[in-house]
């Protein structure tokens, strides 16, 4: 019998970013006992890196805004593959979730009359993102953390879950190891919430942190849950491109929200060149009109730099491909130019974009108040994810298992609008916590079979018993996967490349199963990286499989062999599930017909 510590709670939350913390706070508020498991130290999760803001129709900066406009913007941005019910709940509940943060100590930037200020962002009709300079994610996670530590939540830091444990079709816990000593922990719970974030580490160029290895997606998949629309991976248009060591680090969309413009090597503002039909009516005709929008002229339309991320990213790639890129293969993003319009623009930029100023100054030796930045697309966000019930966030096929935040799918469709992730994790984190606590209360006690625990322990220890020198080692294997995904399942995809990618992923899976890790169980990153490989390879396979099947270009998914968006592909989602023989299977699932009142809202909003 494998030695382990048994920890019991009503609700187990896996992941302590915004969604996990919000879920834990909500579940604890109902009186449930809550265990919060995090892979890193508390407060270090990827939410900390969110920059631009949290989207909510507070109507503080423009009173014309309301949830219906936010709903329509989100659906349009997602190219109508979104779960319309999730988009509805999200737009309706985001304002309350954001206001609540102030009651918990958040200090967001203010309007002149003392309310929360809101800024422009791509795809949002009105200034909608509540923010603190360009460190909104830090403000959010710290607020939730500092509130959460007083709610009686039992926090387990630096503990990684490797398997979900089941009783029949119900999830009843999780098997984990602690990083410090490699000791095993079994978390037994009446309900389990996954809030593990995304999968950007499957790609070479990414804005995502170490933890983003698709753990939740993979845990859920192996426990029998479904994944939805995994082909939609957002490539944020503006990551750093130089020097190589910082390639992929995020440059907030807030730079463009504050007036930053994109130029090619010829000095041309190429974003004006072609505007997608869905957005022609909402986009400025001239740079002059674009600037008026930035400074709040309500009759002006948004500059084309603030079109949706999928479009901006593709446009940058096009410029580079056609030989008009910046010296290191990107485009120029210029905020310094606002000195033509703003007195004391240097101080203004440092106040509005302090982290960006710091980041470029320290890491690239660039003063953004004086020179343009070089930027290019970086893997940023997984729109697809674990398939859940829109109201309760319970997975469609595993009872007692919930998912919220980036690891859950549905809200964002084919492309996520900036700012909608922070509101997503508040709205659906709360819902997941609420419904998980309810499920725990209404459902009977649970039992965990010893055989599952023993199997999970054997799997976890296996890499330490194999020869670490037999292959290239876990870090290099991870790198091979990242190169492969970047090259063949990245921003421009095609049939042959995706087929090769799937073959090669299967090959890497074989090698990963034989991979050995040297050293002991005590704080051994080589061992941890070996164990992470299964998650990374599972999500990589799902992304490539979805991308191969979707023979059109829509939102973040671009097929160079199928450049057009095809109407018939807009009526279903891709659902991935493990087949009876353990192989990955994909099927089409019709999107349920949208409710008439919501359809009317979309039509009214144009």
């Amino acid at each position, binding site marked *: 019998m494998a030695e382990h510590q048994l920890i019991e709670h009503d609700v187990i939350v896996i992941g302590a970013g915004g969604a996990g913390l919000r879920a834990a706070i909500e579940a604890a508020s109902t009186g449930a006992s809550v265990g919060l498991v995090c892979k*890193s130290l*508390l407060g270090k999760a990827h939410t900390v*890196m969110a920059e631009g803001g949290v989207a909510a129709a507070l109507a503080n900066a423009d009173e014309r805004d309301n949830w219906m406009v936010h709903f329509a913007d989100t659906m349009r941005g997602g190219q109508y593959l979104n779960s319309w019910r999730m988009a509805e709940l999200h737009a309706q509940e985001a304002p309350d979730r954001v206001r609540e943060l102030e*009651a918990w*100590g958040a200090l967001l930037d203010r309007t002149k009359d003392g*309310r929360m200020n809101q800024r422009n962002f791509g795809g949002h009709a009105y200034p909608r993102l509540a923010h603190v300079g360009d460190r909104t994610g830090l403000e959010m996670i710290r607020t939730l953390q500092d509130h959460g530590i007083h709610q009686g939540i039992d926090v387990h830091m630096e503990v990684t879950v490797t398997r979900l444990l089941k009783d029949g079709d119900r999830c009843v816990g999780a098997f984990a190891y602690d990083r410090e000593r490699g000791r095993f922990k079994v978390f037994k719970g009446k309900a389990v919430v996954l809030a593990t974030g995304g999968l950007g580490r499957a790609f070479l160029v990414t804005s995502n942190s170490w933890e983003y290895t698709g753990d939740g997606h993979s845990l859920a998949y192996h426990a029998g849950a479904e994944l939805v629309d995994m082909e939609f991976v957002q490539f944020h248009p503006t990551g750093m491109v130089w*020097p190589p060591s910082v390639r992929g680090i995020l440059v907030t969309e807030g730079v463009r929200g504050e007036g930053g413009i994109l130029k090619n090597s010829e000095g041309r503002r190429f974003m004006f060149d072609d505007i997608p039909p869905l957005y022609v009516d909402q986009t400025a005709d001239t740079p002059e009109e674009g600037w008026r929008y930035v400074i709040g002229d309500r009759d002006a339309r948004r500059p084309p730099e603030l079109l949706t991320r999928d479009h901006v990213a593709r446009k940058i790639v096009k410029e580079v491909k056609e030989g008009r890129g910046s010296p290191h293969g990107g485009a120029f993003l210029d905020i310094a130019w606002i000195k033509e319009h703003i007195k004391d623009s240097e101080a203004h930029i440092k106040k509005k974009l302090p982290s960006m100023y710091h980041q470029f100054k320290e890491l690239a030796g660039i003063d953004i108040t004086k020179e343009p930045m070089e930027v290019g697309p970086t893997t940023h966000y997984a729109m697809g994810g674990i398939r859940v019930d829109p109201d309760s966030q319970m997975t469609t096929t595993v009872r007692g298992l919930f998912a919220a935040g980036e690891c859950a799918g549905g809200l964002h469709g084919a492309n996520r609008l900036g700012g909608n992730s922070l509101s997503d994790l508040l709205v659906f984190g709360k819902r997941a916590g609420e419904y998980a606590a309810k499920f725990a209360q209404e459902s009977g006690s649970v039992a965990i079979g010893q055989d599952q625990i023993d199997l999970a322990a054997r799997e976890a220890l296996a890499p330490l018993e194999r020869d670490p020198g037999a292959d290239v080692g876990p870090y290099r294997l991870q790198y091979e996967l990242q190169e492969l995904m970047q090259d063949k399942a990245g921003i421009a995809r095609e049939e042959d490349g995706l087929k090769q990618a799937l073959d090669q992923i299967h090959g890497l899976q074989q090698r990963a199963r034989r991979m050995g890790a040297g050293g002991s169980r005590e704080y051994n*990153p080589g061992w941890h990286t070996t164990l992470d490989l299964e998650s990374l390879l599972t999500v990589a396979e799902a992304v490539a499989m979805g991308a191969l099947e979707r023979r059109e270009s829509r939102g973040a998914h671009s097929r160079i062999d199928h450049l057009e968006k095809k109407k018939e592909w807009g009526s279903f989602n891709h659902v991935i599930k493990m087949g009876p023989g353990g192989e990955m299977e994909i099927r089409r699932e019709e999107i349920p017909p949208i409710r008439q009142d919501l359809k009317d809202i979309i039509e009214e909003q144009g």
Partner: protein
Amino acid sequence: MATATTHEFKVWRGDADGGEMKSYTVECGPGYVVLDAIHEIQADQAQDLAVRWNCKAGKCGSCSAEINGRPRLMCMTRVDELPEDQPITVEPMRAFPVLRDLVTDVSWNYEVKKSIPKFQPSAPNGDDGTWRMDQYDVDRPQEFRKCIECFLCQDVCHVLRDHHLHDKFAGPRHYVYAANLEMNPIDTGDRLAALRDDLGIGYCNITKCCTKVCPEGITITDNAIIPLKERVVDRSYDPLSMLISKIRGK
């Protein structure tokens, strides 16, 4: 910064029972930060080299260490800024117990934070049930809220590092946290007694080492600690307040 350069890194390897500096040679590409070099060492020379990191963008505060003897974030320290003619040393923070290699046990910080009286908002002053706050009043605590909890200020503080007063002294990070709460325009909590008695703010003799190492540039001593010390002193030792307290029976 055009081409790769070769550097010698001396990295502390060991655990609570002791350890030693081990030497690694790393080819560093343009713009490399120390964390890149540590990753190269992990990939090819020492798979089990223990290091804590998350964002590699200076935002999460996980990769704190002592580089050439100075507390810094590994992800924000460029190799080409360090002296070329000597090995680059990388050691764990010394104010906390070592777990393994570059990883220390910082859990004490989380316990201290929990002991600080929490945020207590006033009743909303807006008719919509929210608060009106002036940006001018928000600016001040916002500086403190930039803190990424890297604990480098704790590491450098001699009260913790040399005198090990962890049970009497909360450290600069937590004074910044307390200052953020005390200066929040809608907070009604009172942390002055706690700061004086349990959190030991009196032990700070304002040498400003914490301010110097803060990667977020927070003016820890001048803007957070000194104003808190003044408030504590005013409350405790001002004859007029003492008299009023006495009359009110507090």
